[in-house]
């Protein structure tokens, strides 16, 4: 019997796969079996995550590019090249100091650059109000859909007063 995958070498391995409760059986050669196994092997050897970040920022370590990374954070003094090497920022102000590089990096890691989760009560500032406005707007829509217009008017006033706070 020939391998069902490559149709060349003799089949020596019986391979059973279950995907979504569907069982498929295949007779394959040793070579193909190993390849299938490797394909299925989902995780690469564990690199140190921090070292990979530098690569994500699009730098290579050639000296000509390094000269463009002489920028340092005014607060903690770490240089951009150190961040690329270590993968850790030195303080919160690094986010501003290296903004041009960090924002694209964050987008590459998370697929977005905008926080939508929890906002702290005291240090959240405008973000907290914005989040509340967003929530009220959803409530407003619900009230309108249910034709509860009195309630909707109330919510609209709340939104207006919050929006004033932002100005």
């Amino acid at each position, binding site marked *: 019997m020939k391998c069902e995958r490559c149709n060349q070498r003799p089949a020596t391995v019986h391979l059973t796969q279950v995907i979504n409760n569907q069982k498929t059986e295949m007779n394959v050669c040793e070579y193909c079996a190993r390849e299938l196994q490797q394909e299925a092997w*989902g995780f690469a050897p564990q690199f140190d995550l921090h070292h990979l970040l530098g690569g994500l920022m699009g730098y290579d370590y050639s000296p000509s590019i390094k000269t463009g990374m002489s920028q340092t954070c005014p607060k903690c003094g770490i240089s951009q090249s150190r961040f690329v090497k270590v993968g850790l920022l030195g303080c919160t102000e690094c986010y501003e100091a290296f903004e041009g590089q960090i924002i694209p990096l*964050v987008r590459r890691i*998370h697929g977005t650059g905008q926080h939508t989760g929890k906002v702290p009560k005291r240090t959240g500032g405008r973000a907290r109000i914005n989040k509340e406005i967003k929530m009220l707007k959803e409530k407003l829509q619900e009230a309108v859909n249910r034709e509860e217009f009195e309630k909707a008017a109330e919510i609209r006033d709340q939104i207006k007063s919050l929006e004033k706070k932002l100005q």
Partner: protein
Amino acid sequence: MGVREAVNNIAARWMDGDGPEHDIVISSRIRLARNLQGMAFPNQMSHQEADSVFHAVQLALSDRHFRQQFGDMELVRLGELSPVERRILMEKHLISPDLLKDHEKKAVVLSDDEVISIMLNEEDHLRMQCLLPGLQLQKAWEIANKLDDGLEAILDYAFSEQLGYLTACPTNVGTGLRASVMVHLPGLTMLNQINQVINAVSKLGLTVRGLYGEGTEAMGNLYQISNQVTLGLTEEEIINKLTSVIKQLIDQERLARKALHRDQKYRLEDRIFRAYGTLKNARLLTSDEAMKYISDVRLGVNLNIVDSLSNKILNELVVMTRPAYLVKQARRELSSQERDIMRAEIVRNKLSKQN
């Protein structure tokens, strides 16, 4: 006296083995990363700054309102503990390996039931963790969220409207939330389907790591699955996504176990009882062997093939057979053979008490 108790007493709440889906899910963990405004991150901080983080957190812990909600929680500097005690906290999953490095600048706060731990000056100023048995991510999030609110009433967190909670590493920015679940997947492993599962899960933006193992190897068929993305999703969205993937994984693992028990009954039962027999009788037991046999017996317990044991005993055995616990019991450094002798003895004693 949370921390002292934790290094002397093996039991922790997460090991109780009684949570939802406990035949497959060992524990659920929520971790929140937070930093204080205006202070360098731990990787750049002086001893003095490290101390001021301790003081700020100490102040928050002793606040009257905080204590009404969470009781008295003690802050212990890692430098006050012996190296073995520090490692035991790690082996119990109450602190991370990173907290052991440069330990003079680090501290930990632990609740009495060991459900809550707060690591200070790990990669971020605060890393609070809530660890529960079984699949209980939502509940763990509720506890961690409340703890976070309680601390935030006193502490000024670094926060940006665009990027959320600011963290030392940009991979944690946004919610600062890492949700993870420890699962036991012997069925899928025995049917050689584990790699497909891992592959599929990784494509959904989740990370799979083998537990205790080196690199990609999972010891004792224990895997930790967690979210990778922390920005752009709400905390609830992250938790719901992980929970629903885990539920599918549970279904697959149960099917695999059923198929194994149906198609290879004697081979499976033989494997389980050989493992049980070895654990009960071995005079030398390496760490790898212990993990492997505990996994087999755990499968037996959850398929009702072995009925004299519980998941709790097995969870305790996993921690009791780790190197630091053995050294603590011996009260001295051990050679590798001495460790294997001691490990076998501890396992025999523990199991002989059960029948």
